[in-house]
């Protein structure tokens, strides 16, 4: 395998033209899979790995004109966590990043990697879905934007075209939501894959829920939304009774699978239960 180390976007797009080229972000997922593929003798391997870490245009955080935050896809989780704008404006994303992997994984892994891996358990995804994030895709032909929820097509599947990279996630900070919550249920305190996770945003008007955005991880092939449960909450105070009613709707609608981390039934139960935590906020 070749390894290409472009230093700017022009070199990056050039490198991506190589037949069999595969972008390499933090490597925390890709290199694990490549090791397994080599051990199992799986062919073909990528002909070339194209590093994204040297391309400055893919890194960093900045505020766009409309107030949305533009998070460079090659920014590491640790860089985003250390950024004051992320911490202040996107607390649920910060919470998710805090629990992602482990410190060295956070020093290596990137936001773009977490998005493009498109794992049902990707820790960044529920907050980004709840916030209505948009992704910016760049190639020699230029840049295009699409909603994250449309970009991710299924486990490991995205709308990324050949020759294209994820350049950034654009995240509206949604300051109008007073209740902001992220919870990850893992099997241990670090180095854990989410069994269920929930990102929740509640906008209150005169004590009643005017808008609810709920996004679960690890209960479906991609992040799962539940408009029925959101509707159940609207117009009610965020009491235990209201949240319990919404939790019942969640349990009725969610269709998780069982795997070695948890059964489908446990996921169904807990997907509902996590809503109750909002009663404490």
């Amino acid at each position, binding site marked *: *395998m*070749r*390894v290409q*180390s472009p230093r700017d976007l022009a070199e990056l797009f050039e490198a991506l033209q190589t037949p069999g080229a595969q972008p*390499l972000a933090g*490597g*925390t997922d890709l*290199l*694990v899979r490549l*090791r397994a593929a080599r051990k199992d003798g799986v062919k073909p391997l990528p002909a070339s*790995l194209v*590093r994204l*870490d040297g391309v400055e245009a893919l890194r960093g955080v900045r505020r766009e004109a409309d107030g949305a935050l533009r998070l460079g896809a090659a920014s590491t989780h*640790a860089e985003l966590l250390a950024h004051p704008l992320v911490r202040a404006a996107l*607390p*649920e994303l*910060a*919470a*998710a990043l805090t*629990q992602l*992997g*482990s*410190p*060295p*994984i956070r*020093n*290596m892994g990137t936001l773009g990697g977490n998005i493009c891996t498109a794992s049902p358990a990707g820790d960044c995804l529920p*907050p980004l879905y709840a916030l209505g994030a948009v992704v910016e895709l760049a190639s020699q032909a230029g840049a295009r934007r699409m909603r994250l929820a449309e970009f991710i097509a299924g486990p490991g599947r995205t709308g990324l075209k050949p020759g294209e990279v994820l350049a950034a996630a654009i995240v509206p900070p*949604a*300051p109008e*939501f*007073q*209740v*902001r*919550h*992220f*919870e*990850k249920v893992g099997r241990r*305190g*670090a*180095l854990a894959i989410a069994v269920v996770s929930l*990102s929740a945003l509640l906008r209150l008007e005169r004590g009643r829920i005017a808008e609810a955005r709920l996004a679960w991880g690890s209960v479906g092939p991609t992040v799962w939304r539940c408009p029925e449960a959101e509707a159940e909450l609207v117009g009610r105070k965020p009491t235990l009774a209201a949240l319990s009613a919404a939790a019942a709707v969640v349990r009725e609608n969610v269709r998780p699978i069982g795997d070695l981390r948890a059964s489908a039934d446990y996921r169904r139960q807990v997907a509902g239960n996590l809503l109750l*935590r909002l009663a*404490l*906020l």
Partner: protein
Amino acid sequence: MSPRTTISFRLNGRDISVETAPDARAVDLLRDLGALDVKEGCGTGECGACSILAGGAHVLSCLMLAAQLDGREITTPSGLGTPGEPHPVQQALAEGGAVQCGFCTPGMSMAAAALLAQNPAPTREEIRTAISGNLCRCTGYVMIVDAVQAAARKMRGDSGPPQAAAQTSRKKPAAARKKGGKG
């Protein structure tokens, strides 16, 4: 066969140039170069035994390619300190009973040194978080956390009496540690 390439980096304060397959793993290259202080326990980023510092940041050499070392300042545990001239973290780990089988300890010293470079007075909880990517099967981590605190005090020049290992619980409810803040 992979094409070979020459990479140059700084290893424990020494400039080196080496010819390698660019897609070789960093851990293999470093061990081939004699840095047997870099261990390997899993190959998949789950154990932390292969921890090194790249530009001062704690990273895993089993999930890095040799090409990613190019141009970097790399520190391995033996670059942090030696038995004759140990880093305060290594000294504290040794004196504090934090070493049993010791196979995780070099990597642990990397995690702890990276933490103390950023945060000279970490809490026990912050230490636990900083070493949470480094598995230890022998110690239960208690003496490791104690030792990192002791090293921090020493590096701050604080010679006060050591705090006893906390008898009190970390009382935050399970959910609190997981919770995002309010907007």
